[in-house]
């Protein structure tokens, strides 16, 4: 497999890796015909993120280059600590890197990342990978009774009312409104905690479907990660977020998926339904 990135795409790719690094410690690298999928999951398996870069995102995208035998799609898992430093300095990447080429060498179990920089400098990084089963979150978003679709900025607006240290929030959906309030676990001093609630009108969303009234509590910190990526890329192009809820037994998933240029992001955070 072999692909080439140029210009702003390198920066966006780097930002995606930054966002994924906040979710988990391992990066699943999955080149497919639909595009290159980067995925991560946290240790508790309560948050999952997937960035799918379509072939159109790249200058070049070839799946069948280095492999000798047709052993099926490559599934490799990289250690985040090895990959993140390559894309750490987005400003220096912006200034000096002209092209980035990523290829997979199954023979030597490596992902090779090459940066072609100004002044004829080429930086080559070989990152060893582990073979692994592909990671995939399992939930049927089309079966979700409640669906919200909105511009990226709305997500930022919603979370800005809550302090950075706020861990969990409860999202309530019902026909006349959507509200988000902070959730404080029963503690001795819970009487003294500040309560914040914000409610939004269904008209604010591009698409609003409240199949059933529900309250779902989830970890806000994990949701903020998506907001970061989108906020950072706001300048590049138009974006859309879809937040989908579904129910299965006692747990629920809150997912965000967004299309930005040729990148589809699926984000799923485990939440708890409250009665």
């Amino acid at each position: 497999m072999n692909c080439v990135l140029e210009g702003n795409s390198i920066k966006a790719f780097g930002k995606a890796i930054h966002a994924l690094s906040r979710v988990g410690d391992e990066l699943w690298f999955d080149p497919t015909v639909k595009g290159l999928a980067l995925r991560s999951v946290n240790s508790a398996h309560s948050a999952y993120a997937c960035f799918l870069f379509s072939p159109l995102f790249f200058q070049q995208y070839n799946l069948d280059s280095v492999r000798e035998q047709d052993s099926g799609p490559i599934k490799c898992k990289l250690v985040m600590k090895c990959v993140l430093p390559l894309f750490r300095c987005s400003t220096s990447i912006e200034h000096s890197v002209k092209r980035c080429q990523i290829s997979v060498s199954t023979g030597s179990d490596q992902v090779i990342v090459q940066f072609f920089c100004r002044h004829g400098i080429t930086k080559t990084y070989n990152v060893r990978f582990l073979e692994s089963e592909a990671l995939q979150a399992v939930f049927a978003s089309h079966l979700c009774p409640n669906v919200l679709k909105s511009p990226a900025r709305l997500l930022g607006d919603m979370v800005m009312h809550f302090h950075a240290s706020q861990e969990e929030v409860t999202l309530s959906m019902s026909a006349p409104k959507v509200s988000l309030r902070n959730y404080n676990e029963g503690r001795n001093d819970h009487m003294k905690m500040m309560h914040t609630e914000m409610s939004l009108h269904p008209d604010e969303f591009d698409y609003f479907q409240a199949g059933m009234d529900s309250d779902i509590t989830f970890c806000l910190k994990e949701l903020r990660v998506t907001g970061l990526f989108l906020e950072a890329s706001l300048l590049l192009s138009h974006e859309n977020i879809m937040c989908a809820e579904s129910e299965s037994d006692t747990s629920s998933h809150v997912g965000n998926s967004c299309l930005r240029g040729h990148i589809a992001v699926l984000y799923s955070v485990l939440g708890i339904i409250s009665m």
Partner: protein
Amino acid sequence: MKFRGKIIDIACLNHFTRVVTTISKLTKMCVLRLTPDNLFFVLSGKVANGGVSMWCELSQANFFDEYQMEGVSSEDNEICLEVTPENLSRALKTVQNAKAVKVKLTKKHCPCLTIAAELEMRCVWGYIHLQSALRTRIQPQPTLSSVSRVVTHDVPVDVIPRRLWHEFKEPSMPDFDVSIYLPPLKTMKNIVDRMKNLSNFLVIEANLNGEMNLKIETDLVSVTTHFRDLGNPPWGDDASQDGGPSQSRDPESMVEARVDIRRLQQFLVGQQVNPSKAMCNIVHQSVLHLILLHEDMSLQYFIPAVA
């Protein structure tokens, strides 16, 4: 006991938020006194906070467009609440774009100051553009409709019973020896920041000739910063009725107060806006009294001197 206030003007909201933020940098908890004409943020000097006390006075008419209160009783038409100013500050900071912000005393799971704001959003075919947004999204068939987003913050407070109100009275002007205008706060802050690395205590001395020195002294080093031509506020009659310190005192002689440098630094760090007037009164080896006067708010801060 009832309290409802409404702020509509965006500049007033901004200003009020900045005042509350300044207070939040000075102390973790303080008392908010509400009277028909004023709001006071009070910190009474206790051993726990190093004997430091604070008095901040705001005239409600300068901030609130609507203000109604009913105190504990008709003779004591006042409300005293213990509050964490940082919570208030956080709540206010998130609603800067609001059409109107209401502050009211409510009883939820406990007594609370509820900050409720309505942010008006205009929707174009389901997309949003905030009135102060940088970009406008335009759809082929726009349908303009206005919706409100409601944000509420409930800040828990403790009601202070009447028998404790005497602890939060307006401090009387100390019988100071020298009163002098302060140098630019930013300059003072820079100096105090650096001095803090060398010593825990700082001596502030001043005379009636507009001269002030900030001194630290350790076994290895002593550092002094001199300020000249600061000017002395003309307290005039007030001063003379105390036995006339301004008449009998030699203008060259310095009075000093040795204070905990962190208290002074805390005071300087919190100041976000340049006051119209900044001065300090020193009672020799007793107390440092800092006064900041802004257009619509006054702040007094007392730091006791240590031996």
